[in-house]
């Protein structure tokens, strides 16, 4: 008859780790991780600011107060990228704020809430911004046709279409992965 104390003894006598990283190595990695997060956030904010600046400058310079399919199309493309980037940045910051030091039950509940918000982003906001981007792109095509050579025009059409296909594939895959994660968290939550 094996008692739980026997199991505990076996547990404590198990072999130790073959390689234990030095504390300094872990500190270096942690610092690198912190720096990477800070750089990524700064870069995202910078890209957003530059995008907004370019858009505003463009309208001041070429807008002439009129609305054409070109300005609408371009605004839709840049606007959709902007909205999506801002939402992803907010979402990333929210994920960083989830308290890893919370008790298991509370942590699971918070992760469930976070991934439920992600579900809304992935199923509504992202497809909507992709759709806006596509409509914007289509609105620009007549302008491209008149401005660029036939060869370059078709290059833009094909590369644009390929981008939509690849982006849609990546989107579907990340939706599936995050939905699996949410289902898993719901299961964990139910057992508590």
């Amino acid at each position: 008859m094996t008692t739980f104390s026997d199991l505990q003894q076996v547990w404590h006598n198990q072999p130790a780790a073959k390689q234990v990283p030095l504390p300094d190595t872990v500190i270096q990695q942690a610092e690198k991780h912190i720096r990477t997060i800070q750089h990524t956030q700064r870069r995202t904010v910078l890209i957003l600011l530059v995008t907004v600046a370019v858009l505003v400058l463009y309208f001041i310079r070429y807008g002439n107060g009129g609305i054409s399919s070109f300005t609408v199309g371009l605004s839709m493309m840049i606007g959709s990228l902007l909205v999506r980037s801002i939402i992803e940045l907010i979402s990333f910051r929210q994920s960083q704020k989830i308290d890893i030091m919370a008790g298991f039950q509370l942590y699971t509940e918070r992760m469930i809430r976070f991934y439920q918000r992600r579900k809304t982003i992935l199923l509504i906001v992202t497809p909507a911004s992709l759709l806006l981007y596509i409509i914007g792109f289509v609105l620009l095509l007549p302008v491209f046709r008149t401005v660029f050579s036939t060869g370059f025009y078709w290059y833009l059409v094909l590369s644009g279409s390929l981008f939509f296909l690849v982006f849609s594939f990546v989107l579907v895959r990340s939706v599936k992965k995050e939905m699996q994660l949410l289902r898993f968290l719901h299961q964990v939550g139910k057992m508590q």
Partner: protein
Amino acid sequence: MPDKKHFTLIYNEHYTKVFRLCKGYFNGDEALAGDAAQEVFIKVWQHLDSFRNEAAVGTWIYRISVNTCLLYLRKSSTKKEIRSPELPERADEQYNAETEEQLKKMYACIQKLDENGKVIVLLLLEGLDYDAIAQVAGTTQDTLRVKIHRIKKQLSNCVQL
């Protein structure tokens, strides 16, 4: 910035426990356990300044460990799978083939439990008292007591089969 000496002390005292817990969580997979344990201590370093001695440092680290292990395999940034358990061959007398077999069985039996069961049993095996387990699990001792009795029995029976 946290104090390096303080971190090193905590690291040296708790690394083996965290590694063992992660190993139990990942079916005895040493490589995964090592990576996850490292991630746990990266988080410990990042949050060390916010540790306020309200709980014992061990309990605090176990909280980070179970939360990290929970999503370690499932987050998009990690592309890892649990491999079948490989235990190192050891020639010393204390660590015989029977013990090795029992440990393999234990890993397998732990995998059969649900996530909360895994957390509770791993903390029990580590020797934490009910109060500390309740703090890590984020539940009350009363709720825990019933679960612990059931899980202990479940693991002991499973290992014997």
